[in-house]
Structure formats: C-alpha cells, structure tokens
C-alpha cells in the first residue's frame, strides 16, 4: 500500500513537472473552465428565467445550481484525473507500447490509471466550488457540516463510478480497434448529469440510476449537500459503486488476457 502511495506521488509529481513545462496550459484551462462554467449555468437561466418561471419541479434555482456545481466539479475530476491516463491506454494498445506497462512488477490498472494527470484542470474544481458558493447564497443558508461530509463521501463514490465506467470503455479497446466513438458517446451522455434527475422521464431516470449511474454522480451528492438525501440512498449509492468498481476490475483483468501487443 505504501509503495503504491509512493508511486502515486511520483506519478503526480511527473504530471506536475509536465504541467510546469507547459505553463500556458494553465491560462488556457482557466479560460476553458470559465467557458465551461458559463455553458453549464446558462441553461438554468433559460429554465428558471428571472425567477418568475416554475423551473424544475422540486428544485429551486439555487438547489439546481448545486447540481450544476457538482457537474462542473466532476467534469474537472474526469478531465483532470480520470481521462488523461485512460485515454493514453487506448493509444498504448494501438501502438503496442502497453508492453512496457505489463512488464512492470506493479498492478497494470494502477499504473495506467495514474500515468497522467491534467493538473491545470484543477481550475474546474475551483469553478465548481464557486458555483456552490453562489448557489448557497441564493438558497439563503450554508450546508450543514454533516451534509458536506456526506457529499464528500459521495464525491469519492462518484469519482470511482466515473473511473469504473472509463475502465469498462477502455477495456473495449482490447477487443475493437477504435473506441473513440464510445468515449464521445459517454461524454455526450455525461452531459445529462448537469440536470437534477427528476427532469427525466421515469424510464430514463431508472437507466441513469442503475445502468449509467449519472444520478449517483451529481443529483445524489447535491441532495446530500442540501441535507435531503435519505441514508438508504447514500448506502445504496456506496454499495452500487462497489459493485460497479468490482465489475470493472474483473472486465479489465479479462481484457488484459486478450492483449495481443503490436508487431515489432
């Protein structure tokens, strides 16, 4: 465990060194985050108007903004910590350079997952926190400490869910040559997570809870932060995440067995 923490530290350091090498990326990512924040918030203004419209049933403008804050924050986590390493795997498989990862005496899934971080994407996390501040200002009171703690637990669970979904997509790259379309598809579907799940019809809601658990990623943490998530739902989310992560691990291990490398 200690060795893996050291390795994680080293990989983060390497990504940090790379980020320092391309320091203008900070500016670009900052602008992208601002733009992304704006595009995430504008639809809410369309739905809620100047406050005269009903908006989403059961969600005030401030409360819906909390969901958007989670969406922006998770997008930052996805782009900064999950995507870069796993996108690199697809390239590794195509070029056959995954050989070097598989030859290392450490868990291959760990090595590829932590191989690359897009450090400057931390700006999206900051943007998410800013949205939270605005949202709770609109609501009129701050979240309780216990609710923040519960949403923190759900943040870990949401990150693990996102990661597991990506592992499943990346595992497909061992069987089919191009998985780019799958990654675009996932990115498009993930866009739906900007809305509270109650905006969707019942069937879609069910799919987004049990099949592609977007609800668990943004709506649940938002509800936890607002202090209205039932403890059973929290527990269910954690168990569901554990099952998802286990399935992703099994699929990854099987996929590695199908690795055929590339010609020399």
């Amino acid at each position, binding site marked *: 465990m200690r060795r893996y923490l050291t*390795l994680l530290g080293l990989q983060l350091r390497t990504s940090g060194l790379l980020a320092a090498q391309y320091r203008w990326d900070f500016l670009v990512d900052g602008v992208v985050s601002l733009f992304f924040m704006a595009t995430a918030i504008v639809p809410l203004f369309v739905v809620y108007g100047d406050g005269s419209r009903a908006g989403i049933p059961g969600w005030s403008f401030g409360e819906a903004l909390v969901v958007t804050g989670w969406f922006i924050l998770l997008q930052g986590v996805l782009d900064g910590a999950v995507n870069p390493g796993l996108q690199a795997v697809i390239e590794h498989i195509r070029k056959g350079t995954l050989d070097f990862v598989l030859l290392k005496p450490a868990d291959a899934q760990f090595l590829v997952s932590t191989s690359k971080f897009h450090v400057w994407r931390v700006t999206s996390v900051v943007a998410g926190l800013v949205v939270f501040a605005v949202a709770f200002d609109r609501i009129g009171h701050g979240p309780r400490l216990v609710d923040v703690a519960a949403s923190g637990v759900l943040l870990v669970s949401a990150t693990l869910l996102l990661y597991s979904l990506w592992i499943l997509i990346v595992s497909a790259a061992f069987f089919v040559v191009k998985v780019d379309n799958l990654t675009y598809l996932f990115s498009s579907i993930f866009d739906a997570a900007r809305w509270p799940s109650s905006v969707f019809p019942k069937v879609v809601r069910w799919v987004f809870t049990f099949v592609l658990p977007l609800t668990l990623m943004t709506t649940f943490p938002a509800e936890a932060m607002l202090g209205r998530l039932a403890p059973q739902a929290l527990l269910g989310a954690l168990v569901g995440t554990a099952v998802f992560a286990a399935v992703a691990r099994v699929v990854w291990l099987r996929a590695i067995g199908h690795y055929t490398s590339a010609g020399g």
Partner: protein
Amino acid sequence: MIEVRNLTKHYRVHKRPPGLAAAVKSLFKREYTTVKAVDGITFAIKPGERVGFLGPNGAGKTTTLKTLAGLLHPSSGEVRVDGHVPQKREAEYLKKIMLVMGQKQQLLWDLPPAETFELNRAIYDVPRPDFVRRMKELSELLELGDLVNKPTRQLSLGERMKCELAAALVHGPKVLFLDEPTIGLDVSMQVVMRDFIRRYNETTGATLILTSHYMDDVAALCPRVIVIDKGTLSFDGALDVLVKQVRPDKRVTLRFSQPVTLEQVTPLGQVVRCEGAQAVLQVSHDQVNAVVGRALASLPVVDLNVENPPLEEVMSELFSRSRATREQAA
C-alpha cells in the same frame, strides 16, 4: 535458465478478399484463418548465454520473445524462465527480466530520462543506494553524461536508445530480451551499443536473447544462434557451424600491385567480383591453401584475406532454401 518445449502461438484472423462486395459480405459472415506465428519450437538456454534469434520478417522471433517475457500467452507448449512461468507475470519474475524494443520506447517523451529512471526505481522497488550505484555505472558505460537531464524529445535516436537501455536496466535484470536494439542507429552508435551489451553480460552474467536484422550485431554478440522461419526452428547451434553448414565456401580477397583481367583470375576459382586491382573468389574450404598458393605464384598479389562469406548472404541463402523446401512440399 530458459526452457521452451513445443511452444506454439496461433492467431485466428479474419480473412477477407478485396472489394466492396466482400467487405459487405464480411459484415454478416466472416471467414477466419489460423496464423501459426510460432509452431512448435523447443530450445534451452543456459545462464549467462548470449543467443541470437534470426529469421526473416514475420518468422516468429518477436512473438517468441514476447512470450518469454510474459506479454503473450502461448497457445500450447511449456515455457519456463528461471523457474517461472512467464505468462503468470509474477512480480518476482518481472523484476528479473527486461525487454528493450528498438521500435518502441518507454521514456517519458516530454521529460528528461532521469524522470523515467526515478519512476522505474520506485516501480521496481530498488533501494536508493543500489539505484545510485547502478546509475553511476550505467552512466559511465553508456557515456550518458548530461543526456539524462535533457527532455527526451530533444535527444537524437542514438542518445535516446542509450537512455532506453539504461531505463530498462535500473533494476539489474538477470535476463535481457533485446528486440532489434540497434535499429536505425548509425554504425558508430551500433558499435557502442554492442560493446555495452557484451560488457553488461560479462560483468553481471546476465542471460541475453537478441533479435536483430543487423548481422553484425549477431556476429559480435552471439556465439549461439537460433534460426526461426515461419514459426519453426530451423537451426540451433554455433554461428560458425551455421555458416559452414549453409556456405561451406570461404571468401578469398586478393589485392594486386596492378589491375588484372577476369581471364587471369577465373582459373583460380569461382569469381565473385573482379574490379581493377582487386578480386574476390569463392573457394571451397579444402581448396583454400591450393588456391592461395596458385594466386601467389601466378599473379602480382600484394595482400590477401580469407574469411567466411558475409552473414547477410548466408542468412539470405538459408531463408531462400527453406522457402524453396516449403514450396516443394506444397
């Protein structure tokens, strides 16, 4: 150290004739064919041996190497390296081996090689004092100097390859798998790499398997060669035995004090080349003394050299023979 028995690696590949109709048809009904990349090879390698894998493109050399490294699972047969079954990819085993591929790189592209070395140190769990000592040795042997602190993308191919070797040796492996490590390098850099590899083998006693299309690599490094062709083993033994077996003739190069004609040289033996004041003859092994004596007596010879035919020619003949044998059998 390495034992391979009846190793096979077969791939099932989709076969489709050219054309749109065939492409559409293949969407619904596919035909598959089995490619026998490795088809029942057996050999054993002792600790500290340097062995060259030879064979034309697609012969199965890299597949065998990758199977030994544990990257590919054999279709059948047994493989053991230092008591380990490679495909299990146990950490203990992976710490004993290294694989360098001339056409692929593990160095972090945008960062100096020193960062890759440090990362590998942590992955292989090499104690800091051992790491420092080994890097010092490698740096001296490979003359790395300040290269390790320049971003990899700024290094030349030769410099990068030296750093690749160093990165692969951070953990002091006992078995070295080298897949065309000198590909694309200039002649002087090839010599540097060969010297380093030989010295590493002599000082550490590491076992070494090398594949290369440069026959000079094989001649300089590998007293023993294993020839693989179309997935089967066609020769296993000393390099000079292989040469004698395929081309028992010697090459006699004669240099003269003045130009000679083809007619003057032809009576001595089979003429490979005759240009100006130099001629190259192909002479059977037992005739060398007689031919040299006749040449010295009848022509203005100022210098002569007797050697084996170039290894490239030997291999080319070997492969064309086996191709002919296969075609006959077919």
